[in-house]
């Protein structure tokens, strides 16, 4: 299963490396979101600093929807999905591999967005590691949900409108927990263990459900 997962992750990352969709489209979109939020919230530096955690995570969720579209989209063209199924790879391996590829892309995006909120919003965390752990867990959780919902919407002509409706309400806990961890890191209020635990539970739950339902997902 894990060998298959690595193969699929490498395949998706190679496609990304060649097509540069993350670099050329998702990343500029995310930076545009940061700028627009700042314009909407006004120039008050203190207010921007307090709003930064929410802005970072809502931008991450928007970017995750695009990543889910892309992850499902690469399998839609030229019957790639059928070939992937016929390749004999373990469905759970395919799920984990695709999720890993999305996770790595989202992690890269999270790094850029964190730098963006520090520069544009003046939101420098006083302790870094809770935010780093939160970003790793959230990227993994978003990777799982992106692939799950992407697979559900795959092959339908309504994928673009359907995916945000399906995935955004689901990932509300990531938004809440991620925002709380960043806010705690900003104020130096100690380690927000409960929120990190919630992110871990979300990620584990969706990872487990994805592995268990991967066979059924492949047949949709």
């Amino acid at each position: 299963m894990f060998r298959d997962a690595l193969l699929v992750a490498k395949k998706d990352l190679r496609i990304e490396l060649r097509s540069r969709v993350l670099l050329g489209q998702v990343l500029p979109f995310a930076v545009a979101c940061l700028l627009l939020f700042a314009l909407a919230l006004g120039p008050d530096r203190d207010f921007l600093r307090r709003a930064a955690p929410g802005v970072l995570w809502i931008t991450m969720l928007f970017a995750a929807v695009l990543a889910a579209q892309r992850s499902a989209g690469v399998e839609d063209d030229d019957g790639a999905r059928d070939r992937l199924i016929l390749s004999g790879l373990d469905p759970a391996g395919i799920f984990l591999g695709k999720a890993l590829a999305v996770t790595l892309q989202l992690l890269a995006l999270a790094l850029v967005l964190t730098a963006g909120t520090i520069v544009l919003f003046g939101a420098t965390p006083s302790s870094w590691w809770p935010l780093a752990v939160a970003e790793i867990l959230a990227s993994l959780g978003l990777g799982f949900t992106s692939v799950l919902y992407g697979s559900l919407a795959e092959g339908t002509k309504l994928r673009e409108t359907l995916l945000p409706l399906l995935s955004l309400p689901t990932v509300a806990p990531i938004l809440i927990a991620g925002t709380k961890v960043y806010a705690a890191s900003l104020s130096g209020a100690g380690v927000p263990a409960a929120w990190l635990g919630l992110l871990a539970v979300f990620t584990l739950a969706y990872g487990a459900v994805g592995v268990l339902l991967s066979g059924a997902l492949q047949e949709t």
Partner: protein
Amino acid sequence: MEEQIAKRRWVSVVGILAAISLLGTVIMGLWVTPDDAVQGAVVRLVYIHPPMAWVALYLAFGLSAVASLLYLWPRTRNDRWDALAASAVEVGVVFNGLTLLTGAIWGRDTWGVWWTWDARLTSTAILLLLFLGYMAIRRIPADPEIRARRCAIMAIFAFVDVPIVHFSVLWWQTLHQSATVLNAKLHPTIHGSMAWTLLLGFVAFTLLFVWMVALRFAIEKRQASQARSELDEAIRERRAETSEQSAS
């Protein structure tokens, strides 16, 4: 045929019982029970708001998750589970919307606002969105089996998500009062005629839910059967055309 008549009779009996118990709840709630010392007459919403939430958040959602699991499990796979899950979700959406509406009316009077970012309000709104996502998937034209599988998976995702959403928003912020009956200490904080009316409300809305799901289930079955017969008819016509062409 006899089985169908027995089923219809069963549904009618539940419908009549639901109507009687609802009427009883209205009479008890409006004329028999007293006003609240603090909240006044608006407290009477307690006889319909929690029962609606019980139907939407527990019965409808729980039933759709169980039916979806039974559909996905190869040994129990049957179209009926899919139809049951879809029926429960549709009825759940109605009650979920009504829960938010009655909650907003109650909140306006007690908290002074139609909406507040309280844990239960927020998680109920997110639940409504998840339900709407399920219905959106159901509306996508697809082979019935694929559609059923997609919907079943969506229902299970939502089922996994609900407790996490609930706890996240609970820790985030809570203004809503704690549960009146099923609270942490399992000690009801409502007594006398008010408690009995609330209990009657729960019974009435549970019966109403069963009746509505049964009706929606029958409609779903008929729609599926009609789609099948239309397909059979189209195939027959096509075959007749082909044999006419080959004969000429």
